[in-house]
């Protein structure tokens, strides 16, 4: 047994029902950490090139991070990984709740599933003893219902991750839910679980998680928590919108310190940005065609942060989180439901011009129970509305739904059909790329996705860093790897001395200059996030800034290693190359992944916060790929040798 990690993985073959343990040497963890890095390395070797993502050849990994269970804060994220049926390339997603430490308390760093079962099953693990059990009675039930049934069967210590009807029906938008609606939603990996007829993973462990120096970790955690506790009063919810308005109007902006965002997260959660983001140009409106001018504060007032937390009964903390940005709400329909996140409110709200908060809260719960990604679901509904408005879909196609902008009843009904795959719902349940291909008639122009994955609710026309990561990652269309604002908030230059510090105040136009320095910053974000995903850390903790959240020191204290931040970041770069190589091996041409013109300001918008802005994505992408030692034109890592050696950065 190592330190910080358990040193073992569990392999389950659902076809033969064989279950066996495997050990990993310390050198493996030193090179790949655990969590996503572990999964990237193992799955790259174990998933055959060209494997059908929804076939038995795909391998699905449930992995915990190195820092989970060590006394580090913000270390409650678990990762699911496999070949994504949504993008056809590397797929991963992560979620909070209490599932991450359960993996390690059962004695493992990861559980890998291969093959496919002939009948519905679930895996039950109790302290290193695992068995597959019949799940016929659970098949067809929603994620929360199945979780409650399994918790009743296996006791209060059982932690459950399950798919719902979306995963069972192999929807490409399906995710995996734990803790009654914390959902690893992106990349469509719920469909992989559904294709294997694996309904749930139930973990009941109470083994010890080894730590090299627990008292040092506690000392570091206490220091970090002092920043989390700092919570001065802030404006009332509706007034927060005008902070965004001010940011829109000023010609300059300040480098962001994440401490401000921490204050918002602790007060309201991610919904703090519901109005502010629209005002400052960060949130897309009306399927990315609209702007802040179409969704002014008067219209978005119904989803202001105070309105959301008026429904909140108590704060919700994921495992090891001192912040508690989540919340348990009560709505007219549900006695207990997770507070919707910003992404959900915007995807089912402004993106569809829907201002009805009650409908958004209810759809959030219904989608969590179905096990379907709210970002992609909202993006697909907005796509369908635009198709309808432009005559590509008619009432005959929509089963009578009047799919117009802002028609709340139609949005609710359409999501219901997507969950059940009824009528037009079957057409849309696999996302915008698949639906556009089936509709034809030029519908692709309305499909806002990157490499098949619907874009999140952060606009690259406001922060080109988002556009870059949406387009240039092995996991396209994801907002959790980097942006220019993330770099400012991460404050990595305080730890890795050769990284550049951004100007404290700058003209907004500078954001659109594809300079080599921005490529260095973007690559640093990605390297850092790859380390964080190997450690099991939450992005929101990282926003505190690297001088306030001791990521590298925690890792050293947990493992006994003595490594510098630069060494950890270099390792994050190697994980990135592993994921990119995975995509190349599976036939993805990185250069073919593009963003729709409207997400790049081609043509530029005529009004709103991002008017006149265009993102020079090709130049940015080339510089970014070069930072990892990949070909700047093709995005291909070199065939042999260490890819990172070609990096021009200071790593």
């Amino acid at each position, binding site marked *: 047994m190592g330190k910080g990690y358990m040193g073992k993985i569990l392999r389950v073959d659902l076809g033969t029902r064989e279950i066996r343990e495997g050990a990993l040497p310390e050198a493996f963890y030193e090179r790949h950490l655990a969590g996503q890095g572990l999964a990237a390395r193992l799955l790259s070797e174990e998933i055959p090139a060209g494997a059908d993502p929804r076939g038995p050849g795909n391998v699905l990994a449930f992995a915990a991070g190195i820092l989970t*269970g060590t*006394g*580090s*804060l913000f270390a409650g994220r678990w990762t699911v990984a496999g070949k994504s049926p949504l993008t056809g390339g590397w797929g991963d997603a992560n979620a909070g709740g*209490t599932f991450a*430490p*359960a993996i390690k*308390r059962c004695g493992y760093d990861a559980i890998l599933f291969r093959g496919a079962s002939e009948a519905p099953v679930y895996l039950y693990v*109790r*302290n*290193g003893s695992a068995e597959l059990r019949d799940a016929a009675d659970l098949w067809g039930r929603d994620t929360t219902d199945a979780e409650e049934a399994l918790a009743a069967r296996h*006791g*209060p*210590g059982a932690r459950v991750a399950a798919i719902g009807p979306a995963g069972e029906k192999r929807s490409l938008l399906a995710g995996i839910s734990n803790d009654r609606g914390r959902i690893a939603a992106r990349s469509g990996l719920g469909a992989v679980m559904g294709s294997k007829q694996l309904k749930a993973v139930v973990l009941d462990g*109470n*083994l*010890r998680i080894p730590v090299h120096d*627990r008292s040092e*970790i*506690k000392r570091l*955690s*206490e220091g970090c*928590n002092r920043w*989390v*506790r700092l919570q001065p009063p802030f404006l009332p919810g509706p007034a927060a919108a005008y902070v965004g308005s001010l940011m829109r109007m000023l010609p300059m902006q300040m480098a962001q310190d994440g401490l401000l965002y921490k204050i918002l997260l602790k007060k309201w959660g991610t919904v703090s940005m519901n109005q502010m983001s629209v005002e400052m140009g960060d949130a897309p409106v009306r399927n990315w065609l609209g702007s802040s001018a179409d969704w002014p504060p008067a219209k978005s007032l119904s989803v202001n942060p105070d309105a959301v937390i008026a429904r*909140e*009964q*108590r*704060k919700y*903390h*994921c*495992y*090891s*989180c*001192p912040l*508690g940005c989540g*919340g348990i709400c009560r709505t007219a329909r549900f006695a207990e439901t997770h507070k919707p996140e910003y992404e959900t409110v915007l995807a089912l709200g402004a993106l569809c011009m829907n201002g009805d908060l009650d409908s958004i809260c209810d759809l959030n719960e219904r989608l969590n129970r179905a096990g379907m990604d709210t970002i992609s679901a909202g993006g697909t509904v907005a796509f369908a509305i635009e198709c309808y408005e432009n005559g590509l879909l008619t009432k005959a196609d929509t089963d009578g739904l009047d799919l117009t902008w802002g028609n709340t009843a139609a949005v609710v009904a359409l999501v219901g059909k997507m969950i059940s795959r009824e009528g037009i719902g079957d057409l849309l349940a696999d996302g915008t790329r698949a639906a556009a291909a089936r509709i034809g008639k030029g519908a692709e122009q309305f499909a806002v996705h990157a490499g098949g994955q619907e874009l999140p609710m952060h606009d690259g026309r406001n922060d080109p860093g988002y556009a870059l990561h949406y387009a240039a990652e092995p996991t396209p269309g994801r907002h959790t790897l980097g942006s220019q604002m993330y770099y400012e908030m991460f404050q990595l230059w305080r730890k890795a001395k050769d990284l550049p510090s951004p100007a404290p105040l700058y003209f907004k136009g500078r954001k659109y200059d594809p300079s080599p320095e921005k490529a260095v910053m973007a690559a640093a974000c990605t390297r850092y996030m790859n380390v964080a995903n190997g450690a099991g850390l939450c992005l929101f903790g990282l926003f505190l800034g690297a001088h306030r959240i001791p990521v590298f020191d925690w890792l050293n204290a947990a493992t006994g290693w003595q490594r510098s931040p630069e060494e950890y970041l270099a390792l994050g770069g190697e994980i990135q190359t592993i994921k990119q190589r995975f995509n190349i091996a599976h036939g993805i041409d990185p250069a073919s992944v593009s963003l729709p013109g409207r997400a790049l300001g081609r043509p530029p918008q005529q009004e709103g916060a991002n008017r006149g802005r265009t993102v020079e994505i090709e130049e940015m992408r080339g510089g970014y790929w070069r930072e990892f030692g990949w070909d700047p034109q093709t995005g291909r890592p070199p065939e042999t040798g260490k890819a990172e050696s070609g990096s021009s950065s200071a790593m």
Partner: protein
Amino acid sequence: MSHHIGETCDGCGACVRMCPTGAVTGAKKTRHAIAAELCIECGACGRICPRGAVTDAFGIPCEAVRRSAWDKPRFDAGRCVSCGICIDACPARCLGLSEALQRERHALPFLAEEKNCLGCGFCVRECPMMAISMEGLKK
């Protein structure tokens, strides 16, 4: 590192019922054994054993203590950050979350199943904020 059961064990089974990980096995009225890979060194077997047959990982004999006198966790609400680490660390699953407190609506951990508490102190050991202490009747 694991606890160990010595020759004076009479196979009464008290430790089997206590062990939270199922590490102790053995036929009734025969000497029991602890599976090292499952032992988490909570010490419950040693505290419950009426024969004094259990030694800890260092070979030191464990002393039996009357169950009602086992220490229990006490939570300092002023230091607690609601992170839930203690709830996860508890091998006996005896901690729960309170209702939301009025001011900031954060729930706090408390000893929900007092009769199941093993007095192991794992919650104290893992709490990153040093918000928990063990208190109880002295022997």
